[in-house]
């Protein structure tokens, strides 16, 4: 076993040897090594996060036919560091009416809820935090803490905009959690496990091919969960002036901002893991764990790029439209897809792989098509009703 085949274990064993050589207790040295490993991973994530700021700004600039940051360093690469220095030396104001403890706790919890997601992300077959057998549900559990941090931020700021923004965001997040939970069950059914590594291991055929509709619904729910456009009505610069984080300044705002970017990248990663084979790419992941990590990061970046693409192409929609879309269309569709998948899985249990994949793919296409037809006829009926009576339609916010 060499460093190139199992870097994590070799490095950990070596370090533990060093620590026990100093006369440290075996258990203690194990915990210390694990702590250092986790610290290293999270520190690397924070460095990545800094560059995500640059990537996000460059990509949005390209979408909007601009150049983006280009003054500091080559391609403006030093720009995010300037941003961070600015955030650090800004004065940290707290509104006088705020609930101080809750107000300060919210950005910390927000960042933490994103960072702990990486505990279950398998970067390579042997490079992963925890091989948790409830990995898929852990995703939702970490999201629950993120939801809580938003409600804490919104309530404790003692500001009407923050309050409305926070509450709307939470209403949206909990609503879209249902299609997300349901779509997490689809890779679970295919793989027969909630373990992330097992889900990747089962993807000889990418689950995207087995369930394109599932991947799409997961993406929509993930974007809503992230609170990004077109579902960023809680931020609503024109109405709510940034929503739940309106009163935050300096590094506390930085935590919300960095947390959002890293969250988007993380969900790009989960999208890749659940539907696009994670670190697997035509056997390349067997060559070296480092290659596997590279593959996963590229796939996660592509997922993140899709999320940005959606964000900078679509317009914001209203909260009533958004919740209506979730409860009247996405949730029933997600349940229908789950049941169709379960049924097809049982019917095609003994079929060869190509037939299984084809059957699943067609079942997805048919389910999506039927759902769209139903939605089309329903909306047409509604439109005819509205246009026939000729009553002015008021926008309720």
């Amino acid at each position, binding site marked *: 076993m060499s460093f190139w085949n199992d870097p994590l274990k070799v490095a950990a064993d070596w370090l533990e040897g060093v620590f026990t050589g100093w006369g440290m207790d075996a258990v203690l040295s194990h915990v210390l090594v694990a702590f250092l490993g986790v610290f290293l991973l999270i520190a690397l994530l924070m460095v990545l996060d800094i560059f995500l700021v640059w990537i996000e700004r460059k990509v949005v600039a390209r979408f909007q036919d601009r150049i983006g940051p280009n003054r500091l360093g080559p391609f403006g690469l030093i720009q995010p560091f300037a941003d961070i220095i600015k955030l650090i030396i800004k004065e940290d104001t707290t509104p006088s009416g705020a609930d101080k403890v809750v107000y300060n706790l919210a950005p910390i919890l927000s960042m933490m809820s994103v960072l702990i997601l990486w505990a279950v992300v398998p970067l390579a077959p042997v490079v992963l*935090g925890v091989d948790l057998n409830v990995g898929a549900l852990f995703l939702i559990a970490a999201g629950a803490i993120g939801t809580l941090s938003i409600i804490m931020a919104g309530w404790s700021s003692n500001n009407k905009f923050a309050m409305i923004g926070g509450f709307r965001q939470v209403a949206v997040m909990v609503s879209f959690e249902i299609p997300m939970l349901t779509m997490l069950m689809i890779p679970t059914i295919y793989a027969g496990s909630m373990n992330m590594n097992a889900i990747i291991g089962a993807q000889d055929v990418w689950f995207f091919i087995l369930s394109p509709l599932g991947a799409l619904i997961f993406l929509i729910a993930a974007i809503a969960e992230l609170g990004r456009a077109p579902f960023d009505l809680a931020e609503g610069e024109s109405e709510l002036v940034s929503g739940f984080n309106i009163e935050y300044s300096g590094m506390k705002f930085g935590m919300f901002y960095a947390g959002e970017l890293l969250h988007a990248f993380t969900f790009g990663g989960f999208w890749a893991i659940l539907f696009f084979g994670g670190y697997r790419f035509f056997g390349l992941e067997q060559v070296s764990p480092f290659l596997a990590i590279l593959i996963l990061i590229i796939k996660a970046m592509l997922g993140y790029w899709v999320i940005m693409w959606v964000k900078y192409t679509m317009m914001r929609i209203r909260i009533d439209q958004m919740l209506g879309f979730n*409860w009247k269309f996405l949730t029933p569709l997600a349940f229908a897809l789950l049941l169709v998948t379960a049924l097809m*899985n049982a019917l095609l249990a003994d079929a060869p792989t190509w037939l299984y994949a084809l059957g699943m793919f067609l079942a997805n296409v048919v389910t999506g098509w039927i759902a769209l037809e139903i939605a089309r006829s329903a909306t047409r009926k509604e439109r005819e009703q509205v246009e026939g009576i000729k009553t002015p339609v008021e926008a309720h916010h």
Partner: protein
Amino acid sequence: MSEWLYIALFIVVGLIIPIGAIGAGFIFGPKKPNPIKESTYECGIETVGDAWIQFKSQYYIFALVFLVFDVEAVFLFPWAVKLGQLGLYAVVEGIIFVTILVVGLVYTWRKGMLEWV
């Protein structure tokens, strides 16, 4: 058990890093508070009334509907894990389980409780 040790470490480090970042901001940032700076920001207009007011019931309804489906999903996860080895009868059970709840969703819908008015 040792799995949870790692999760605990992730939680601890996940708390340390943001606290460190905010702490750095606290050390390096200026601290010159004044009442205007600390007033509630509402686009420059004097704030009127209290932010902590009574909210409308719609939020509560959505949270309740969410809770029901959340619990439902929790029941379905073990079912989904084992589904591959169970055969058609388990699928039928799952269909019955979900259909009963979709009836609830339809009822909520028909009563107009999913409208955001």
